[in-house]
């Protein structure tokens, strides 16, 4: 069951940029592409834990700032020779607001 939470305005994220949402499981990086698509991934590269939110966004991909792993933001899969994946979160934009699916984020019992 999905549970969308309003986290920010689209305008809070620069095009080809990202912002971070803190969650009990660690940070989620919310990306905005040049053509205003929005993606949400765990802000932690499976390689050495680099903050993906600080990577360069190009097309629908992001490059980790620490060692240049490239991830497809739609699937979370590492591209090219690297193998690995980062968890993705459903996200959508409604009326200029970004809604993040928080169902995968553990509710405190």
């Amino acid at each position: 069951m999905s549970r969308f939470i309003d986290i920010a305005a689209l305008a809070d994220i620069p095009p080809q940029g990202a912002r971070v949402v803190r969650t009990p499981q660690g940070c989620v990086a919310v990306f905005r592409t040049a053509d205003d698509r929005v993606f949400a991934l765990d802000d932690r590269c499976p390689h050495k834990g680099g903050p993906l939110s600080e990577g360069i966004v190009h097309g629908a991909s992001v490059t980790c700032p620490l060692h240049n792993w490239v991830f497809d933001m739609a699937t979370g899969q590492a591209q090219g020779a690297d193998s690995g994946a980062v968890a993705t979160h459903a996200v959508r934009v409604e009326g200029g607001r970004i809604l993040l699916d928080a169902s995968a984020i553990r509710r405190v019992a």
Partner: protein
Amino acid sequence: MTRKLVVIGAGMASGRMLEHLFDQAPGQWDVTLFNAEPRGNYNRLMLSPVLSGDKTYDQIVTHDTDWYAAQGVTCRFGEAVVGIDREAQIVHGARGPVEYDALVIATGSAPFIIPLPGHKLPGVVAYRDLEDTNAMIEASRPGATAVVIGGGLLGLEAAAGMAARGAEVTVIHLMGHLMERQLDPAAGYLLQRDLEKRGIRIHCKGATKAILGTDKVEAVLLEDGTTYPADLVCMAVGIRPETRLANDAGLEVARGITVTDQMRTSDPAIFALGECVEHDGQLFGLVAPLYDQAKVLAATLAGTDAAFMPLQTATKLKVTGCDLFSAGDFAEGPGREDIVFRDPGRGIYKRLILEGDRLIGAVMYGDTADGPWFFDKIRSGADISADRDTLIFGPAFAGGAQSDPLAAVAALPPEAEICGCNGVCKGTIVTAIQGGAATLDAVRGLTKASASCGTCTGLVEQVMALTLGDGFAANANPPMCKCTDHTHEDVRRLIKSMGLKSIPAVMQDLGWKTVGGCASCRPALNYYLIADWPLDYRDDRQSRFVNERNHANIQKDGTYSVVPRMWGGVTTSAELRAIADAADRYGVPMIKVTGGQRIDLLGVRKEDLPAIWSDFNQAGMVSGHAYAKGLRTVKTCVGTDFCRFGTQDSTGLGIRLEKLLWGSWTPAKVKLGVSGCPRNCAEATCKDIGVVCVDSGFQISVAGAAGMDVRETVPLLTVETEDEVCDVIAAFVQLYREHARYLHRIYKWVDKVGLDWARAQVADPDIRAGLIERFRLSQTIYQTDPWAEHAARPDDWAPVADLRLRAAE
């Protein structure tokens, strides 16, 4: 039976008309020729060479006395025509009347004289005829001063001619750039620069207020209060058709004498041609259409059908060394597009103006060889859409598609220049390859092609690939990244030549294969655009690596290190206190002294960055750019202030250099060292740029390294003063900024271009001055503290939302 033809005006148009007429209809016309000047037809276009002393009057005479005699022309030179009696078909000359069956008015144009105070003083001339030319020749003895009012074609030729004779010439031009009717601002700027190199002073946007003098001209006063001394004033602000006779005769006159396609005026027995006519609303000042008119009128008089169709005309400036070409219409307008090529180093500028699929105008400066080819395309109105990609490269590239650079290179003739720095043409390179040079280095060694600035390396490799075929081991210079087939050098060259001023423009026009590039090309493009267009381009933070985007160095755990600038490695107790306080306040886990003589605070959280920067700003400290492909540190020793061996104030010089260079973005990091004596305590000789002070001055050396590679610097120049040190280093850094590939440290770049070339650039006073100027210009934009800017918006640095609290509800 012969009929009587009277011609008023013995200029170039009527002269050419008479030649055609005598050729086509010999013996049909009995000609009387009036001329206000006491001489026959000469080539007015050649007055400029007469003025500059390259030719004499005798050499530019078109028709001499013998010619007129042979054709049976009755010459009435030096005699004014006082009136035309159209009823009786009689022309009244000052010395008597003459009947006509047909009359041709070819009175040409009169120079426009602005009725300024003093415009009638002796010493004010126009530039129209031999008398004016002789007056200017007389006035331009060495040391004399002359002012030319009007920076159009004629005015500049007058100025260059007088300057060639030794006069000190100033050109005053009302508009923002020279020859604004033929040139756009960029080409006008290049022209102005070349004229200034010849010692001609150019004052644009200058409105003349008065011509000063009592008995004769003494000076020119401008509206802004400037005065220029002048022994002679040449007014060259334009011409207007000379229509007084036609007006008096009651002929139809608009701006010029109105004529039909057959050159007939409103009176069927009277014709007109040349600069005095108006055809279809258009006036004519250049020679080509006048010659067409002459042909048509001769045919009309000979009884054959002909019609005048005005064609586009091209302009060339007859000033030696100023290579300029302009044709067609080059005004900007809706539906018009430009293709621009610029090579600022060589002063070359080419601009084509397209409307739809047609070329409608061309402006070229510095290299006008392809002018006639473009002119032909303009006149024919040919559809150029198929050749559009390579159109600006001229006939040599015609038909080649940009997507296949090899085809374009293959189409080049053997004499096409590949390497502009060393003047190496394609044929030379091919010969060297066929003689056994199989690698780029070998070709470079034999021909010097691409051995200087290196921007033609891609072209040289393409010639090699063509000549060697499969035998050529490609990838000696691989493409920039997988997003493009272009090399870094190609991209840098094309950004400048195509005037690409944004990352999307580069990706669009250079055919990027990906959307949005990648983490490799985007920062490179961002740098190239910053370096090449400091005024036009705005830094794109999202194309920066994390460190430059966040103005701090990211650490393995995602925290950052913060390094405030310590000018020349000198600090104060107050700064140290501020650093200590900040370390406590933000829980900095490690404080470390760096190799560049400053202090690093490691382990700062991202959201704390704006606050710590703000604290440092308040203590008077700015970003140390320890994260930047830019100026890092200037390491110094204590120099003469404390050291018993120091020969110069190395600390002071280091601080001065750091204050000069800080904030500038460069292809890779730049570190300097300044040592006060050859003991070299600042380790200056393993820096990107090092200065070692000696008794007699300063030894500047470059291209050191102490990282993955260890290199000793190599001497660049030795200079005597601190000012020169700053000039040479600013120029050298700018040269590096303009030419190097992104991420190449100075030593790698110098390996590629050769130290000799780099030294020659910064040693040449003109080139050095240009480099310094461009560096200063860039610094006016980029020498700012990024910490101060970002500290003002702390919210941007914090998480955009915190779901820990929500989840806990």
